[in-house]
Structures are given as C-alpha cells and as structure tokens.
C-alpha cells in the first residue's frame, strides 16, 4: 500500500511565472539525515514579485525557503537532490561559498534577532561586512526609512537594538537585511511574533520593498498571503512514506490559488477545512 502510495504520490503541475525567474529552485528530495523532509517541489521565484509559501506546519515551506540561501547548511545532516540556481548560477556549486550566497540573498527570520549592538551598528553591519566605502550614515538612514522605523529611532541610534519593542526589532532586522540592497529577500514568517499593528506595518513594508527587491515569504497566515503575495505556493504534508514529508501541492497566481484552486487539497486548505 505504502509503496503504491509513494509511486502514486501526487506531484504539482509545473508553474512557470510570467516574468523572469530569479531563483530556479527544484528540490526533488530534501533530507535531514535519513528523514525525507521535502520532495518534488519546483518553486520558481519571480523577479520583483512577492512569492508566498503557505501550508500546514511540517509541510517543509521553511525548509524550502532556507535552501534558497543555504541557511540549511548550518544543519550538518542536511542534504538534498535537485538544484537551486540564482540567475542561472548554481547556488550549491562545488566551489561556491555559502557566505557569498547569503550576501546576495538576504534573510529575515521568524523571531526578531537584532545583534546586541547599537541600532546604527545593526544596520551598518552588512555595509561594514562588505567594506562599503561610501556614506555609511546616509545608507543607514535610507534603510531605516525604507523599513518604516526611521522616525521612531532617529534620536536614539546609539541605543541597543535590543531595547526596542518586538515589532520595532523586526523592522530593524529588515533594515539590516536591506541596507546592502541584496537582490532577493527571504522572509521566514516575519510576523509570527508580532502584534496586529506591527504585522500591518511589516506587510505594508513588503509591498513597498518589492519595487526594488524580490521577496519570498513563508507565512502561516493565509490572509497575509492574500494581502501581499503575487504568487502563492501551497505545500502539503504527505504521510504515505511513513514520516511527514512536505511537498508542493499547487503553485500559481495568488488569486487563482485562493479563488479557483485546481487541487482538492488546496481547496480544502484555503477554505479553512484544516490548518
């Protein structure tokens, strides 16, 4: 039964975005040790758009996101079959240093994680790391303005980043991530630790950011996906292998996923039958 289920296991129809693809991500199998965490997920990230990843917990959406800038390399047992290509270049190429990948593909995490240093130094961190020679203060201000937090912190740039509230810390982290103008910004449930007002601000921010950046967003909140994402990828959990393996069920324009899903599972999920 399980063998048939495994071979019969559904695979999502390939989605081809209308615009240019920044990240061509095809993950056939992703393992943590022997555990198959994700299978058959072909998730192209379109340039200048927000791509949302939704699905129940354990569906591998974070794993897929973290594969894009090699954050999973921090977990020693991680390995995968497939490829991730960034502007056509293999992100996992033998000679590619993950450090370089992460400088081009920035990340904002679930928990706000500012460094224990001043607000200014937090934002200037990436600039200094990349030995930016220009006007540091101007860049820091610009990033803080873009992250919609400049007005709140402009008089206390020397205060510790950790002295801010949770929502402010998260916007500070976004400022830190965008100060170096990375091409792509990965956001892993950036609002899950935030209150509704801060969430609203961060969502607003994402919509502004997509003018300049490509954003991939993992969210547990379907409404958030409908509010900000242009394209939505829905992941499901496949228990036919014995473990809980995540896989891509359906990917398409957000409107289509929520209003006219092609898959039964997607229909059930977006109508709130399970979560």
């Amino acid at each position: 039964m399980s063998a048939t289920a495994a071979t019969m296991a559904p695979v999502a129809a390939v989605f081809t975005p209308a615009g240019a693809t920044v990240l061509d991500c095809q993950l056939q199998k992703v393992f943590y040790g022997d555990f198959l965490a994700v299978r058959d997920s072909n998730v192209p990230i379109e340039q200048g758009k927000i791509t949302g990843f939704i699905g129940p917990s354990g569906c591998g959406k974070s794993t897929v996101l973290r594969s894009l800038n090699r954050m999973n390399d921090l977990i020693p047992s991680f390995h995968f079959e497939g490829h991730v290509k960034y502007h056509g270049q293999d992100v996992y190429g033998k000679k590619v240093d993950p450090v370089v990948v992460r400088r081009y593909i920035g990340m904002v995490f679930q928990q706000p994680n500012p460094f224990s240093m001043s607000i200014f130094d937090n934002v200037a961190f990436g600039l200094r790391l990349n030995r930016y020679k220009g006007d540091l203060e101007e860049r820091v201000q610009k990033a803080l303005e873009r992250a919609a937090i400049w007005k709140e912190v402009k008089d206390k740039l020397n205060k510790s980043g950790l002295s801010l509230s949770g929502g402010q810390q998260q916007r500070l982290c976004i400022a830190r991530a965008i100060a170096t103008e990375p091409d792509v910004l990965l956001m892993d449930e950036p609002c899950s630790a935030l209150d509704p007002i801060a969430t609203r601000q961060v969502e607003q921010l994402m919509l502004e950011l997509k003018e300049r950046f490509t954003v991939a967003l993992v969210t547990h909140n379907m409404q958030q996906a409908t509010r900000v994402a242009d394209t939505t990828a829905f992941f499901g959990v496949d228990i036919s292998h014995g473990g809980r393996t995540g896989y891509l069920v359906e990917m398409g324009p957000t409107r289509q996923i929520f209003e006219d899903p092609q898959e039964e599972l997607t229909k059930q999920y977006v109508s709130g039958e399970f979560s």
Partner: protein
Amino acid sequence: MALNPFEHAGAASTISGPPSEGDYLGDRLFRAVARACAGLIIALLLFILWEIGGLALPAMAQHGLGFVSGSTWNPGTQEFGVLPEIWGTLYSSLLALLLGGVFGVTIAIFLSQDFIEARLAVVFRTIVELLAAIPSVVYGLWGIFVVIPLLRPVAGWLHAQLSFIPLFATDLSGPGMAPAALVLAIMILPTVAAITVDAFRRIPYKVKEAAYGMGTTRWEAILKVMLPTASSGILAALVLGFGRALGETMALAMLIGNSNQINLSLFAPANTLASLLASSFPEAGQIEVQALMYAAVVLLLITLLVNIAGLGIQQYTVRKFEGKV
C-alpha cells in the same frame, strides 16, 4: 483553618480546597530559614571585617597612610610599608589576567563555537576545569621544578638581547615575577574559560543564524557578533579571574621571590600582599602581627574595589549591548 469563602461556592463534587494550616506553617518556616541564612552571610562578612579591622587598629593608628606608601618592611626597626606588595599584587594579577584572559577566552571560543564535536567539547571542558582542582601548593612546586628551569634560558636570552626594554631589565635568577604570573595565569584559566563558555552558550541560536544570514564568515560571526553578545559574561569571567589572582597565596609565596622591591622587570623577584601575609605570620611578633593585619585590610580593600568596579563595568556593558537594566 484559613478563611475559605468559596467552600460552598464550587460544585459539590470539587476536590479543591484551601491549603492546610500545616502548609501555611511550612511557608512561614521556609521564609524564616531563608532570611536567617541570608542575614548570616552579611553578619559573617561584617564580623570578619570587624575582627580584622580591630586587630589592625593599633597599626593603623601608628602608621597611618604611610603604611600604604612606605616601601620597607623591617620588624626590627618597626618600619612597615606595603607599597612594593601592592605593586606586586596588582602587577602579577594583571599579567596573569592578560595571559589567562586571552588564553581562556580563546579556549572558550574553541569549545563553544562548533570547532569540535559536542561530546569531545565536554571532555575538553572537564579537563580545563580539572586545572582548578589542582592544589595551589602543587602549582607552586611545579613552578619551582618545571616553569623556572624552562624559563631561565628564555629569560637569559631576552635579557641579553633586549635589556634596554624595562620588562627585560634584569636576569631571572630563580623565583620572580614571570614564573609567578605564568603559573597564576594557568590557575585562573579554568575560571575564565568555564564562565566564558557559559556566556557563549547562553547566546540564543537565532543570533548565530542572524550572523550567518547576513553572510558572515565563521570568523566574522564569532568576532563581530558572538563576542560582543557575550561581552558582559566575558567581563564577569575576567573580573572573577582577576579577583582570584589577587588573593592567590601559596603558589605565589613559593614562586615570586618575596623581595620587597618595585621593578617593572618580568624577571625580578617581587612580593604580593597575600604571600607577605603567608610567609611572615609564623615568625611575627605582636607588633608585626598588627602590621600584617593592616596589610590584610589593604588586600581586602583592593579585592573589594576590583570586584565593585568589575560589577559596575559589567552592568554598564549589559545596559549598552543588551539594552536592559
């Protein structure tokens, strides 16, 4: 019985009820014991200060502040001054802190930042902590029979080639500042390393993630993110290590040479307050004992000041880096 206005309010089948008289008694008893223990600590500290201060009082009255600025210690003429000992205490402790601090923090980074497998790190850490279990007198003996003979040729060469540098102005003839500071550094190493490892361990995983997410190399992550994040804990480690070095007695009494002089040279013999106390008490007459008590008060004050200053700096770092009170 305690007042229970809800006795008839709940459903008839409820098992809930108020704590018994005995439970409340236990509470009161526990509070009393805890308070008594806390009070006893303060009383003990005050008692020690009072007793030593009382014994030192005659010497304080006689020598006044001249005791701190004088540099002769001669029971025969009843001249007592501890400036060389104060110098020796601070100099040896600072040297030890410099060596042991750098070494200890480096080891802590090695043990806590995934350079070796977790299980191996535990073994390694236990070995480092075992250094603290070696008795002081054994360190002294080891210093005399191993460190001094090892240092002698190095010291001789440094003195011959670089004697224009004040640090190497004299030759090492046996016991002296360098072997004392070196052994002292090894003695404070476990303290510094263990507390620094804990400081690194307390850093949440998300901080490491944030650093790597910004595209730092491992070295940049440790130096630019982990180190400032752990700074208040590292400072605490250094303060504790320094405090331990200031008060260390036996090994220093055996290694420093017990010589009343102020010399920048690493190879000159010197003396510290603690080793002065240890080596002079057995043969001291009444007058000298009073002077030694005065010296003990000076040592106490120095350690107290260092610890208070250290705590102050640590609090400041916590505020500055972590944004907390």
